[in-house]
């Protein structure tokens, strides 16, 4: 256990972007909140203000979420490649740490630790922003931002997203790590080309779309599997900027999360199995990676 703590700490030493990136975004948002013009349309009834406040906080998270997704993917693609390129792999291998532990620590960092850092940064900057906005002119929105259950819902949403994404995208993470452990260079290219080639070849020679649909369902199917039908609860996601009476009660996050549906979907567990196999492959390559 202690070894894993050190291994994850090591990842934070090596990849300082893990915390510099969210810190930079947070600072930019703070500057915007401090000096930007805050002009919010559609303020009025308390319900509406509340929905707006939820939207603002959610939008904050989304910004961090998007950057986190990109960074995390890059991290997983690079993590087993960087120490082979600079040959420091030989140093890590001279210590009593198994290759499995090294790979799992990196997987954990990419799928859990990095998202936690980003969402913590999102929370922190959302709180600071709420504070700044309450001090500035828009008192309606300002007070609407300080509702404990809104924050609670947001935390639940982020935690659910971290956990369910880690499970759903395990095969993707496994694929990235396999490529990272295998390719000498051009990891990005290697991660994209084989699936793309498979899709095109299938289309060309067989005229079918099996691989394409598999990939599509995995990449784009997350929201449909992990959440209840979003279009029915769109009130929370798209704010009522137009008609005055388009929303009466803001949708609660609790109605959106679908953990039972997610965990009982066969696609979830097939993905976990595929992901586990790919990660085993990455460990095997890592065992032999001196020869590559």
């Amino acid at each position, binding site marked *: 256990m202690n070894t894993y703590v*050190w291994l994850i700490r090591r990842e934070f*030493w*090596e990849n300082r972007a893990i915390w510099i990136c969210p810190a930079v975004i947070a600072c930019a948002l703070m500057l915007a909140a401090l000096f930007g013009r805050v002009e919010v349309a559609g303020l009025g009834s308390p319900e509406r203000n509340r929905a707006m406040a939820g939207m603002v906080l959610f939008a904050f998270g989304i910004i961090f979420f998007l950057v986190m997704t990109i960074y995390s993917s890059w991290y997983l693609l690079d993590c087993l490649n960087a120490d082979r390129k600079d040959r420091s792999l030989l140093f890590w291998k*001279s*210590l009593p740490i*198994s290759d499995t532990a090294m790979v799992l620590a990196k997987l954990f960092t990419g799928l859990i630790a990095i998202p936690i850092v980003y969402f913590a940064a999102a929370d922190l900057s959302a709180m600071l922003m709420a504070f700044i906005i309450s001090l500035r002119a828009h008192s309606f929105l300002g007070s609407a931002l300080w509702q404990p259950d809104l924050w609670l819902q947001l935390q639940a949403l982020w935690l659910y997203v971290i956990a369910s994404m880690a499970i759903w995208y395990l095969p993707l993470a496994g694929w990235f790590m396999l490529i990272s452990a295998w390719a000498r260079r051009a990891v990005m290219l290697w991660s994209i080309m084989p699936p793309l080639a498979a899709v095109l070849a299938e289309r060309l020679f067989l005229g079918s779309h099996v691989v394409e649909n598999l990939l599509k369902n995995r990449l784009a199917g997350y929201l449909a599997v992990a959440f209840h039908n979003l279009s029915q609860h769109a009130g929370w996601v798209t704010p009522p900027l137009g008609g005055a009476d388009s929303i009466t009660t803001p949708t609660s996050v609790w109605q959106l999360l679908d953990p039972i549906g997610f965990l009982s979907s066969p696609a979830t567990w097939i993905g976990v199995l595929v992901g586990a196999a790919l990660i085993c492959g990455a460990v095997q390559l890592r*065992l*032999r990676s001196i*020869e590559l």
Partner: protein
Amino acid sequence: MPPIIQARGLSKKYGSQIALDHVDFSVEAGRIVGLIGPNGAGKTSALRAILGLTAYEGELGVLGREPFGNRAALMLEATFIADIAVLPGWLRVDQAVDFVDGVHPQFRRERALALLAETQIAGQRRIRELSKGMKTLVHLALTMAIDAKLLVLDEPTLGLDILARRSFYDALVNDYMDATRTILITTHQVEEVENLLTDVLFIDKGRIVLDCSLEEIATRYAAVAVSEDLIAAARAENPFYERPMLGKKVLYFERPDFHRLASFGEVLTPSVSDLFVAKLS
């Protein structure tokens, strides 16, 4: 006491190229063994197999373990420095000490800090900011602070100046080495290590050419500088190598009749480097 390293029929192929060809050898506890061979002879392959870094064919036991697949357990009792310094550039010196201290139960932090203090490298420096020689010194300090039964050094002093090299080897023999430890070392600078080796293993084209202790060299091998007039008679004693030197010829013999050799000139024990050249030419 069983040998620290025991290899039987050890082979390693890369595609059709044979790096190690059914090699047998063993290394006993408390020895300092030089693994010596030209480039591409199979030294690195042998070391990698011993350290569990690569799969191989044949039998290999290191500290009683099969190394490949047990590397993590093996590294509790063995450690190594491979090729040139390979510490990652982003790592800070103090982080390196903290990390190894955190994951290695046999690491002695005070010793590492004492060794680093001698080098006068500040803890906040990143490895990438250091010169090649300083990188090596940091790596050596980390490695020498590990209480390992087996230390494998692959060209450990590459990039160090002559003073640093000398002080490294002095420290290795005087501070580090004791009866419980075993050191396996490869280097191109044979002259520098021959005084500290207890055994040599010559390897060439994937085979062991010579495997003996330094005391054995004195009883098994002889070199005589023979003048031209005696050369025919000396050649009759079956030298395995000869080379010209200052108008004379130096002839190298294996298991000779030392009394008869004395009549051709002064009988000397060849140095490890001379023997290496003689054996591999």
